[in-house]
């Protein structure tokens, strides 16, 4: 069973237009912000790039994670549209390269009048707390972790797709590749545990507020990235379905993705709230300062919006069964969730370096559009390169029968 996908002209043009907006905004931003004299503008230029590149990287790695999780749990439900997370995962390297370059530049080359306004820990001298963290927060460690992490993620993203393609050419009903994939998935889980679930968010994001710390932070970042990643998968599936592809996908499969969006929105809220509540409750100034700035300070509007968009909306709208089976509702909610978690990443990154000088304007949205365009462009390109049905997959027939 094969099914080919050809990129419709409209999709290609949209993605190219979005990329063009991104590039244009980047150039404009470079000229006006880096060329200007405002310190905050220089910080803003790089910080927005950091926020977006990391957000899109973590969100695409979520696709690799869901493949590994489904393979280990022997989930049949995902097989009908497995090629979508595979295509996203196979392009992790694109976002990895971009994010890696930006992160390493910020840690090594970025400075405003001799100060690194984003990663203060680059110059810990004179700051006793940062000096104490020097064994972990230093350039070499940062570069090493960044390169190794991104290389591993990119490798697994491509490996999983390659294995899935190998299954197509394997003898009928052969399970050799299936079990090989099972083993690689276990390996990926280990890698993911030591990167996304622990060290990576500490280094890339939490160290922006270098004095502050929270043990929950990486799991909370994971929840944010994962629910956005599932929403991106849903958007591709719905698009393909509307385009007349993915014949095997029915409302049952859409319902499943809706459940994931719902469940992990609630999970995000759980970890988000637990982190917030425990810090609020203990009321230790070194810790509450982080939320003081966000909840009561100049970011309070965004802070409350994040909560409403990422929790109140999904729980009210996605709770009912019919809404998870309605193409319009799930598509709308996927966009809402992606935007909401992009805002969540915004509020993780901006307040430390920018304080009250924050912007949510043409530059922030333009860069977001650029990355979104790039995602659409590369993923749809990869989708054309193989059949949309993972032929010969041992669970394919179950996926056809699937009832949510």
């Amino acid at each position: 069973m094969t099914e080919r996908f050809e990129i419709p002209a409209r999709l290609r043009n949209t993605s190219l237009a979005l990329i063009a907006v991104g590039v244009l905004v980047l150039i404009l931003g470079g000229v006006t912000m880096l060329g200007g004299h405002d310190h905050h503008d220089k910080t803003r230029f790089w910080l927005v790039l950091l926020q977006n590149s990391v957000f899109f990287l973590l969100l695409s790695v979520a696709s690799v994670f869901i493949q590994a999780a489904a393979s280990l749990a022997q989930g049949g439900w995902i097989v009908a549209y497995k090629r979508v997370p595979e295509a996203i995962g196979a392009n992790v390297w694109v976002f990895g390269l971009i994010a890696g370059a930006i992160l390493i530049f910020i840690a090594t080359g970025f400075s405003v009048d001799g100060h690194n306004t984003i990663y203060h820990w680059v110059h810990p001298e004179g700051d006793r707390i940062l000096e104490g963290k020097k064994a972990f927060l230093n350039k070499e460690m940062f570069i090493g972790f960044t390169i190794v992490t991104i290389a591993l993620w990119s490798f697994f993203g491509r490996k999983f797709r390659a294995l899935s393609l190998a299954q197509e050419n394997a003898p009928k009903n052969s399970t050799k590749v299936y079990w090989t994939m099972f083993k690689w998935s276990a390996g990926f889980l280990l890698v993911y545990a030591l990167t996304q679930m622990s060290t990576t968010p500490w280094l890339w994001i939490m160290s922006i507020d270098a004095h502050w710390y929270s043990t929950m932070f990486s799991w909370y970042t994971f929840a944010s990235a994962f629910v956005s990643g599932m929403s991106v998968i849903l958007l591709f599936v719905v698009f393909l379905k509307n385009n007349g592809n993915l014949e095997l996908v029915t409302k049952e499969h859409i319902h499943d993705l809706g459940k994931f969006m719902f469940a992990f929105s609630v999970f995000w809220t759980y970890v988000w709230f637990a982190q917030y509540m425990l810090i609020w409750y203990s009321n230790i100034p070194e810790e509450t300062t982080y939320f003081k700035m966000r909840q009561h300070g100049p970011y309070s509007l965004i802070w409350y919006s994040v909560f409403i968009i990422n929790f109140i909306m999904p729980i009210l709208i996605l709770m009912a069964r019919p809404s998870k089976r309605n193409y319009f509702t799930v598509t709308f909610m996927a966009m809402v969730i992606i935007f909401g978690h992009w805002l969540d990443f915004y509020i993780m990154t901006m307040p430390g370096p920018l304080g009250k000088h924050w912007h949510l304007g043409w530059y922030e949205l333009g860069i977001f559009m650029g990355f979104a365009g790039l995602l659409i462009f590369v993923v749809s390109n990869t989708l054309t390169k193989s059949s949309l049905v993972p032929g010969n997959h041992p669970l394919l027939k179950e996926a056809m029968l699937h009832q949510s």
Partner: protein
Amino acid sequence: MHLKYESFVREPLVDGDKTYHQVTEDIISPIEKKPGRMWYVGFFFSVALLLLGVFSVTWEVYYGIGVWGINRTVGWGWDITNFVWWVGIGHAGTLISAILLLFRQGWRTGVNRAAEAMTIFAVMCAGQFPIFHMGRVWDGFFVLPYPNSRGPLWPNFNSALLWDVFAISTYFTVSLLFWYSGLIPDFATVRDRAKTKLRKRLYGLASFGWTGTAKNWQRHEALSLVLAGLSTPLVLSVHTIVSFDFATSVIPGWHTTIFPPYFVAGAIFSGFAMVQTLLIVCRKILGLEDYITIGHLEAMNKVIVLTGSIVGVAYLTELFMSWYSGVLYEQEAFKWRILGPYWWSYWAMMTCNVVSPQLFWFKKLRRNVPFTFIMSIVVNIGMWFERFVIIVTSLYRDYLPGSWTYYSPTWPEIGFYLGTFGLFFTCFFLFAKYFPVIAVAEIKFVLKTSGENYKKKMETIDAKSAEEFKHELDHAHH
């Protein structure tokens, strides 16, 4: 009609050549027979332990909480350690009945009944500890917000300890309802087969007059769905709130944001280990190897290695952050935890919970019954030490070196703990004798998709190409 098909890549959930009747026969007949000698030995041993517990608790209530080893510095010792340990064990039942139901995991049908029973008994054991830790236990009702009879004195609604009262009692109620509602059709089956008047009468009462009509089933399904919906957040909420008992404080070693999900993962970890311990024995004694297959044990071992590793990541995160925080007290707390006089408890925890479960990465070991049995006990030893480490080693080095202490339990504390084992196993033995330990109706539900004999007949479907299969499916719909 939905086509009964399951991929050849999955192993059968019910082994052997089974019909609906055979399933009933296999699971219900042990209830109708006299139990073997081992059952009596086990049962009376459990009752003896339970009596030891009653004696220890009576001693404590009579002479006061001073007979325990806890002191001003270590105010929580074995009591709260045991409380958290038992509550944690309870989690597997709820996870299996609610979350695995949502994830459509067919293998839950073989183990859910016993796991849910275990949950209820474990929560019963857990509840004893905070109650008797109160000392003046006759004032225990003060934990409930009971209006106007005590003047202005109300429970502190800002206290995580009060949240616990609600969390645990809700959890117990919903788990009990879930378990019992599932039992109703099975009780009716026992009733319908009963050869003695008394049995017919008692199981008839227990089955609430179930007749198995379509309407009965329809209401039953609706109720199950509602209860599953209620239980899902409970899987997370109970141990989250237990973790709040510690994490809302400002005590180094307790105040850490990762506690809620990490406690939940640990609870599932220990709960599955306890399910393994019990079911490996049950399947052997009751001859249920066809229903609780090696595949079931392997699936649970996978959950154990996953949750064990999650817990491992959390331990290391905590340890790393204590250093990274730059807070002297956090750093010291962990130094004393790992290298202080209680070092053995920390290393016991690390070895049993993080290191040894990693052996389950090997398929051979996941499918090895004796090894699984030993590991299931090792895990629960480790999880007991986890709670001991969190509680005692965070407290024993106080801010003031003058208050430093070393805590050891006294005999009433140990007797109390052993007593809860007595309670747990007394209940479990009674359950295994009088209740169907496997959900008969639910096994029948998966039999035609996942039974070994039925799966053999699916070979013709497996031989079809995907196109053919799709074509036939579309055809069947018209």
